[in-house]
């Protein structure tokens, strides 16, 4: 079926998601001839804006950008390639079950590196109202407290908690700062004597040692803990703990009591620190705008992008990846094949076990990558109002995670193959900042809803409607009348995401971010430095270090690794 070779490139990148495009753009800028092959009709992968109801568009996957490094945006000149912001430095608000919320504001603008402005988060409180808190728990170095000055002494938030929050933010920010540089380098290999591996290990050790005795000791103490215990140690307010704890488990296969969840939280914070000052942001036009700009940057650098070109297999010749075969039968040769697909799809699907060793295949096969996050999209005929939450707060990020126990309970269901009866959510109303996403006067609500296990015992065919109902019930509690305003709705379960975005298990991060799938063992030993056991084949997706979220670092790290590698013709 393979026709004669039609074309030949230095590098063939599989997948035009953000990592694939960052990788392609970086390689093209490095002087390589690059072809990007995307199975879908448009670029974007899971970082995509698409219509889900007539006239209503939404970011189909992640809806907030907070991890993509500022220097990456700058290096690839995404602003000049059309990337604009609908919102930056957004607030988070913890919705309170009784109404109201606790808002975490980005803090005073212009304050140092990140204070200027992440989006804030708001935990909606059940009784109405919310707890608002500063973006990037990073706070502001030593001065984190100042960003918090505007904390309301609202329900359940004592002066002691406010002070503890300031201290906590400052400390976590120091850790994030220490860990952030680790993200932008290939992780070291263990058991080698190569100087770059030793240096890399030394750097990690030094970054931690440099925190000083007290901070280092504390980091090592909490590093292996679960986030439940950490937050219990620090705070009284259930809403605050719930909101902070949610960040540790968002998109992952964990509850707050799962071991290692402090590490996942630190990892997120380190990513946010590395991303710079913009905090929680929303691109104008949704997340797809990021990939559109990346695609333009890649094209401008000389890369060719082909959509609706599904790679059927990686061609192996002489024990080396020599190109790809498309589903159409077309054969394209390349000196290097770089896959942004998840590791399982790449190795077991595109390459095939027969070209790989059993032990390696076993590790890939055992990668934990079953998604637990669903995405809910609502088309609304009016702006949703949340009980006791200000209009400003509802332009930010809204969290339904009233307590750590609530999250843990929601997770318990998932452990046994059921969806949560009281799910947790990260909600945005993108049309509050970007009217272009819906017809005039109408709105879009986008929510990450957990937990929705990939392998639902009852099956998603059966469970879909009930889970949608459950999610809407939860929302209705915080936003009475919401149901009546719905004119269109879509629920993407992990199974849907697997199908639509071609991600094994529909996992946001292409594999759990967990101790045993981090750093030098991400995705698996033998492929953790973007290289794979098959010469000429590289990985550049979220399955690699430093992982998922719309980050792009994996793509950039991989490109740098390849540019430093000889990819001479076989």
């Amino acid at each position, binding site marked *: 079926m393979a026709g004669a070779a039609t074309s030949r490139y230095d590098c063939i990148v599989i997948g035009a998601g953000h990592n694939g495009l960052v990788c392609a753009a970086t390689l093209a800028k490095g002087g390589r001839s690059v072809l990007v092959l995307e199975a879908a009709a448009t670029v974007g992968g899971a970082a995509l804006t698409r219509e889900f109801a007539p006239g209503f568009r939404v970011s189909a996957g992640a809806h907030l950008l907070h991890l993509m490094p500022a220097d990456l945006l700058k290096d690839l000149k995404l602003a000049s390639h059309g990337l604009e912001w609908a919102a930056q430095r957004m607030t988070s608000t913890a919705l309170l079950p009784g109404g109201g919320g606790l808002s975490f504001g980005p803090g005073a603008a212009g304050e140092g590196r990140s204070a200027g402005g992440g989006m804030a988060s708001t935990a909606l409180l059940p009784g109405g109202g919310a707890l608002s808190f500063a973006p990037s728990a990073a706070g502001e170095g030593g001065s984190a407290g100042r960003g918090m000055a505007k904390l309301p002494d609202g329900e359940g938030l004592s002066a002691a908690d406010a002070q503890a929050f300031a201290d906590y933010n400052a400390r976590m920010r120091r850790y994030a700062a220490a860990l952030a540089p680790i993200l932008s380098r290939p992780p070291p290999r263990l058991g080698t004597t190569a100087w770059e591996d030793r240096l890399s290990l030394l750097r990690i050790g030094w970054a931690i040692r440099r925190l000083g005795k007290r901070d280092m000791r504390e980091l090592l103490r909490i590093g292996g803990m679960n986030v439940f215990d950490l937050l219990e140690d620090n705070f009284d307010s259930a809403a605050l703990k719930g909101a902070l704890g949610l960040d540790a488990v968002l998109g992952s296969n964990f509850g707050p009591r799962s071991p290692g969840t402090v590490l996942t939280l630190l990892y997120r914070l380190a990513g946010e620190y590395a991303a710079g000052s913009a905090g929680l942001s929303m691109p104008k036009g949704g997340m797809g705008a990021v990939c559109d700009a990346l695609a333009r940057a890649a094209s401008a650098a000389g890369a060719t992008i082909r959509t609706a070109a599904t790679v059927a297999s990686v061609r*192996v010749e002489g*024990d080396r990846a020599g190109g790809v075969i498309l589903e159409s039968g077309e054969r394209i040769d390349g000196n290097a094949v770089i896959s942004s697909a998840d590791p399982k799809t790449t190795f*077991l699907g595109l390459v095939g076990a*027969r*070209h790989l*060793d059993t032990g*390696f295949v076993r590790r890939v096969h055992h990668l934990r990558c079953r998604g637990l996050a669903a995405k809910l999209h609502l088309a609304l005929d009016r702006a949703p109002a949340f009980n006791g939450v200000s209009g400003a707060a509802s332009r930010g990020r809204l969290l339904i995670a009233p307590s750590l126990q609530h999250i843990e309970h929601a997770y318990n269901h998932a452990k046994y193959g059921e969806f949560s009866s009281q799910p947790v959510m990260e909600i945005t109303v993108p049309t509050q900042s970007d009217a272009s996403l819906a017809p005039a006067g109408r709105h879009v609500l986008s929510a990450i809803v957990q937990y929705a296990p990939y392998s639902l015992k009852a099956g998603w065919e059966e469970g879909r409607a009930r889970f949608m109902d459950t999610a809407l019930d939860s929302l209705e509690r915080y936003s009475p009348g919401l149901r009546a305003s719905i004119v269109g709705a879509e629920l993407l379960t992990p199974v849907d995401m697997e199908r639509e975005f071609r991600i094994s298990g529909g996992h946001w991060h292409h594999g759990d971010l967990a101790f045993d799938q981090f750093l030098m063992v991400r995705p698996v030993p*033998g492929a953790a430095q973007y290289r794979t056991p098959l010469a000429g084949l590289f990985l550049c997706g979220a399955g690699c270090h430093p992982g998922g979220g719309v980050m792009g670092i994996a793509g950039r790290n991989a490109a740098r690794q390849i540019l430093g590698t000889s990819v001479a013709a076989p």
Partner: protein
Amino acid sequence: MTQSPAPHFKQPLQESPFHERARALSQVDSFIPWAGYTTVDVFTTMEQEYFSIRNATTLYDLTPMIKYRVAGPDALPYLNRLLTRDVAKLKADRVAYSVWCNDAGHLIDDGTLFRLGTDDYRLCTAERQLDWLLDSAIGFDVEVAEVTEQIAALAVQGPTSCAVLKSFGLEGVERIKPFEIGYFNLGAIRLTVSRTGFTGDLGYELWMEPDAAVAVWDGLMSAGASRGIRAIGSQALNVARIEAGFVMPNIDFVSAEHTIRTGRDRSPLELGLGWLVDFNKGHFTGRRALLEERARGPQRRLVGLDIEGNKPAHNALLYTDDSGRHEIGSVTSAVWSPTCKRNIALAIVDAPHFHVGSTVWADIYLNRELVWERRMSRARVVERPFFSPERRRATPPADF
């Protein structure tokens, strides 16, 4: 992929279908466990049994040998990815000896592969390893099942074995060439006969349903009565296999899946089994690591030793000279060869001392009536096997 439903855990040691017959012939009540079965170590004396292997015909109960059935459309690509040899070259009704490795190119086990049909194979191994075989099946349309208990097996080995089988009624058995398989019907009994064995002598292995086991045993015993047939235990077989230069798992190497300490794994190149590794057949597990090792050159190798004197060099450490200062390896199997009249051993020797013709020194400990003596004996690295008679290969074998 299916697994054997047999509840091994319920019976610590099983009895093979030949057990009643073996029990009756055992004179010294010497039984040892082997792969979950109770088996005979010695029936009468090791020497008597050994000489039967080299001079007459012997029966050895092979049933505990682990057997896997590998079948399905992808059986061939599966096996080619698993084993180091090119399975595509294995014709139907033939047997191949092979090894298989982990990713690091270190030996997991050795065994024999029987091709019983187009996509139907049987893999006989020393160790249970269904997990490795099933993990190797990820991405292949193949069924792997353990069939150990469904097949009784008997090794019929020795210079008169062909004659015994003929008089037992296996017409045409003499036409079976080494590593070939023949099928026979004896009344209601269906027998699969392969010309294979672990003695380095003329010999066959008989595979049958467990129900037929006793009838076959009795039939062979009466057919072989005039040709000196004798049941043997593992001790005698071990002497024969050292003479034949065959390696034994857990004696001459430890499976890479079982080693704990670094550096204790062995590659096929190190074990002198490089001839089993086909680098040109496409990918197999461990290939990339073995290519690197080949380029680097092996650091040690399993060799045959011919040692001065007549004291077996059991567990002896090896040195460059008789000063015993520079250790260069150790003996893994040693025996005084009754047939070769040589003091032989298998040993792991470091580079560059493993080349044929090299001299090494073995530090042999002797227990003489509870007084330990130490003897530094000169040894020469020699070719394996130590004993390989023409009758092993002759087809048809000589009649007796």
